[in-house]
């Protein structure tokens, strides 16, 4: 029959056309998605910061080494009654806001809530969210970096990395910094 004949004759071409049109639709959709991502990156309000950032142990706050985000003040901004429990590394109950820290991809600022002598909650007040690079970084846990005071080591070594102090400029800058640190 002519219908069958024309179908069998035009079959491969029609399939190609279908695939071509489907391809265009798929490519158009992909372009749309890419455009949306580029032009309107997802902006997440600070209150909705994912808790995936918080390490399973909040050890940096509890360790003697301290954390890279020191509390802005040692006085809590709000107080509650003192805890009746005794904790090995207890904190005063209250809410503490850290200094904003430039974490290379943007600012990070946290607020810690202490209750019953231990950390109950860590909120992000600021975290990098205004650049595409920051979007990618936000999908992985941002690290808390441990800090420590310098300690002279008495161990024997084979070789040393570093160089001798020769710069006068460095000495002067160091002195002025230590002046400021004493106040």
């Amino acid at each position, binding site marked *: 029959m002519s219908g069958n004949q024309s179908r069998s004759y035009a079959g491969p071409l029609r399939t190609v056309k279908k695939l071509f049109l489907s391809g265009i639709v798929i490519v158009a959709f992909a372009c749309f998605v890419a455009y949306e991502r580029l032009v309107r990156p997802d902006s997440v309000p600070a209150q909705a910061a994912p808790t995936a950032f918080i390490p399973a142990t909040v050890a940096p706050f509890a360790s003697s080494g301290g954390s*890279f985000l020191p509390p802005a003040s040692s006085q809590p901004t709000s107080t509650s009654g003192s805890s009746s429990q005794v904790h090995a590394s207890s904190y005063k109950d209250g809410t503490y806001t850290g200094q904003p820290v*430039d*974490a*290379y*991809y943007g600012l990070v600022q946290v607020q810690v809530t202490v209750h019953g002598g231990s950390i109950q909650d860590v909120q992000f007040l600021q975290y990098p969210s205004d650049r595409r690079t920051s979007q990618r*970084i936000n999908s992985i846990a941002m*690290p808390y*970096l*441990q*800090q*420590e*005071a*310098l*300690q*002279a*080591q*008495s*161990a*024997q*070594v*084979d*070789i*040393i*990395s*570093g*160089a*001798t*102090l*020769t*710069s006068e400029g*460095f000495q002067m*800058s*160091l002195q002025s*910094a230590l002046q400021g*640190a004493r106040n």
Partner: protein
Amino acid sequence: MGMPITVEVVDASATQSLLDSVFDHFQYVDNTFSTYKEESEISRLNRGELPLDDASENMKAIFALAERTRLETDGYFDILNDGKYDPSGVVKGWAIGNAADILRDGGVSDFYVEAGGDIQASGLNAEAQPWRVGIRNPFDPAQIVKVLSLTDCAVATSGTYIRGPHIYNPRDPVDPLDEVVSTTVIGADICDADRFATAAFAMGRRGIFFIESLPGFEGYVIDRYQRATLTTGFERYLLHDPVHR
């Protein structure tokens, strides 16, 4: 550049001639890349006497490496400073890496090469232990503040006390770079460790986050208040059973 160089080889098979070829290489590097030498290739290039296209293969390789580093560090590493090229921030690590290659090609496997405070360590020391590397206290050169245990590993330290025209903040040239005094980077390859330590130092306090973001590299940054910040994997390189002096 006039920096001290130390090479220690444990393998009994090492010859004086092999060691000489290592020091010859450093001499060649100094003659070619020292901005303090008027007749060096870099000085002639900077005076406009030599177009980069006509420069030696090694010069071109250094420029290519510098450009790659500039892009990888978002512009915080840049050998162009005030209209002149100073590739010291990448040449040192590159030269040490070449020296290590010379030794390996010469059949030795237990050694370190140290130049200007940067080190490539290979194999084990004379006690058949990983090489023990100290990080110098920038506030007291007689002290060390960290002891590392390294094998087949490199460590590079950039600091205020060794700052020259090659370490500046290209994103803000008037930045005095006085918040951080010492930036140490540990990684498999000295060339990478050196260029990333230079860039991280130029980033100031943010440098430690940059090192943290690099897979395969760890860092230790000391600030002007004598506080240090560590990347999360840094402690795997520490020596855990030290012999005390």
